[in-house]
């Protein structure tokens, strides 16, 4: 009954006219920017962050969450219509979604993606409402060693699952941790790696790195790419899926939601893993696996549900533990901090309107996505027909305004330029930037907890293995590494992430 009361309370918060309006704006703008090719959810949120500054905390978070789902759905739209994934999770959607579009079935593909996402969103809203509070209670018992081990597990998972080269991904995590050190040390008050620049004593801004690498760096890379993209929209007739489509998609949607929700709770794993796993599972279960890659609707329904479920369940560790479970969640926590709220397990009890309002708004946001996107597909198609040479200056403009608005400081833009160049180099050398970002966010937290844990244990490092919860995380970390370097798994993973595989 308490669950019911909490949800009702959440809906009374989320259903105020003001919050509904912000939710709508978030979903709409998120989709609008997310549809633009090459712009993933991370860059979208970073770019749109300034519009949440003058908004009350609850509304700001609701809006950011809306931007997030919108951006993700927008990315799927682009994947289906142009075969151009905005982020790794959408790569899977490209495989069968684009084939469907070529066969003139873009409408049903887009519709099933929306329906699957909505189902996943509904289930995950319930999961968060059910498991959030007990988890927050457990989290209140966490000490420094538990936090450190949990973060270590998250970082290792992020690195191991990020790309096909584990060594490079782990190195990127370490690089992120190192970049996170820049700034004033909390314990000693000493400025580290600030090179005498006063702006650097506050550390490097997260948004600077995100926009520098994922917007500026990405555009530089795109402009060197001679490939032309083609929009398959001329035959966008019948939007609604047939009864047969719905029937065959039901199973994949349910299974995709399960996979996504499970992986979503683990910090570090990105939505790409959920999508890939769902796709592989559906292909395995299918009566005729050869249809996959040639426009099988199950290949769109499953992964799309999975990545939405994952995206939403990422809020569980983020809100209950105060640990950003993904780079996008780090931005969310950053926004909370800007609003003057310290993230952590206490948020739920001290700010119940924020927690439950956000949970309820997730469901509303997902409903809005369905209602908004089916009629607006025409608009997105129009947007996709805008040539890239007009789009990228616009992306640059919004990115720069976004960066400047964070601290009203030109220095941040100079740093962004540097990270644009570095990001481009990383892309060329195939050094995956996503694990770096997570390392960067968790760096200061990790150092802090490591110091505290060793201080409590009088310098004895076995403290991480003698406390049961911490030991559990350590064993899980070891298992992740061992499983992933097993030759069989390695070969399969290479097959999935191989860019040469048919799209």
């Amino acid at each position: 009954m308490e669950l019911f009361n909490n949800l009702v309370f959440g809906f009374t918060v989320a259903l105020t006219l003001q919050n509904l309006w912000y939710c709508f704006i978030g979903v709409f703008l998120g989709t609008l920017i997310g549809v633009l090719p090459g712009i993933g959810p991370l860059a979208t949120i970073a770019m749109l962050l300034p519009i949440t500054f003058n908004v009350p905390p609850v509304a700001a978070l609701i809006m950011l969450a809306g931007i997030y789902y919108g951006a993700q759905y927008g990315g799927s739209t682009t994947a289906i219509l142009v075969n151009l994934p905005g982020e790794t999770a959408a790569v899977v959607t490209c495989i069968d979604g684009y084939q469907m579009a070529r066969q003139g079935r873009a409408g049903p593909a887009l519709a099933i993606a929306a329906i699957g996402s909505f189902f996943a969103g509904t289930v995950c809203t319930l999961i968060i409402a059910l498991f959030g509070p007990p988890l927050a209670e457990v989290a209140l018992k966490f000490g420094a060693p538990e936090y450190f081990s949990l973060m270590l597990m998250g970082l290792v998972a992020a690195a191991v699952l990020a790309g096909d080269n584990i060594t490079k991904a782990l190195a990127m995590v370490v690089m992120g941790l190192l970049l996170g050190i820049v700034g004033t040390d909390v314990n000693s008050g000493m400025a580290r790696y600030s090179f005498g620049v006063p702006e650097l004593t506050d550390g490097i801004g997260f948004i600077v790195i995100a926009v520098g690498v994922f917007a500026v760096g990405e555009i530089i890379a795109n402009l060197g790419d001679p490939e032309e993209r083609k929009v398959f929209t001329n035959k966008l007739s019948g939007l609604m899926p047939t009864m047969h489509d719905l029937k065959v998609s039901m199973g994949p949607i349910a299974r995709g939601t399960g996979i996504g929700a499970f992986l979503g709770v683990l910090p570090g794993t990105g939505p790409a893993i959920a999508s890939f796993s769902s796709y592989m599972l559906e292909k395995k279960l299918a009566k005729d696996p050869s249809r996959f890659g040639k426009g099988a609707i199950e290949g769109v329904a499953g992964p799309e549900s999975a990545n939405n479920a994952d995206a939403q369940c990422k809020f569980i560790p983020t809100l209950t533990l105060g640990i950003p479970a993904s780079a996008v969640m780090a931005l969310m926590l950053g926004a909370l901090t800007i609003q003057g709220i310290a993230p952590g397990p206490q948020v739920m009890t001290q700010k119940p309107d924020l927690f439950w309002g956000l949970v309820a708004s997730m469901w509303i946001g997902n409903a809005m996505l369905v209602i908004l996107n089916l009629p607006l597909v025409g608009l997105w198609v129009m947007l996709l027909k805008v040539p890239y040479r007009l789009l990228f200056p616009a992306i640059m403009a919004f990115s720069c305004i976004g960066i400047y608005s964070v601290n009203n400081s030109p220095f941040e833009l100079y740093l962004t330029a540097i990270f644009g160049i570095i990001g481009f180099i990383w892309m060329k050398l195939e050094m995956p930037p996503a694990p770096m970002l997570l390392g960067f966010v968790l760096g200061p937290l990790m150092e802090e907890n490591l110091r505290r844990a060793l201080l409590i244990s009088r310098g004895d490092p076995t403290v991480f293995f003698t406390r049961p919860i911490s030991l559990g995380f350590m064993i899980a970390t070891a298992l992740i590494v061992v499983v992933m370097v097993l030759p069989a798994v390695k070969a399969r993973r290479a097959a999935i992430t191989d860019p040469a595989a048919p799209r």
Partner: protein
Amino acid sequence: MKFDWRYNRDFFAGLFYIVLGAVGMWIARDYPFGSALRMGPGYFPTVLGGMMVAFGVAVMMMGVKNNEKIKPHWSFRALIVLPLATVVFGYLMEEAGFIPAMLALIPLSALAGREFKVVEVSLLTIGLTVLSVFMFIKGLGLPYPLIKGLWGY
């Protein structure tokens, strides 16, 4: 296959890690190291720098073994122009105001592309600037002057 460092992807990736890790450790020499019990500000960075160097060596070895090449096709122009446009925007925001900054940023960014059509870029610049003024300054109330007085005044 014989090792060739030119355009060798992982060789340079490894080099990147090694240099960064080494520089990180070098700078951290000046920070008190402390002990495991009472870590100084130099402890964590030094350990991380060491890990970076180790990973860098491993990645470099991969490069020596695989000889994987960097993918071709890249726009040197975009690599120079886009960061420059970002810097110019920051400078003008501070010195000249929102409108001049936008009027410089958009055409300058457009220069990074392969084709530059004067009429098209002009329309885009004006359109985006007007839109942003209404959206960010009027609509969201971001507190930036549209045009500051001439330099130095």
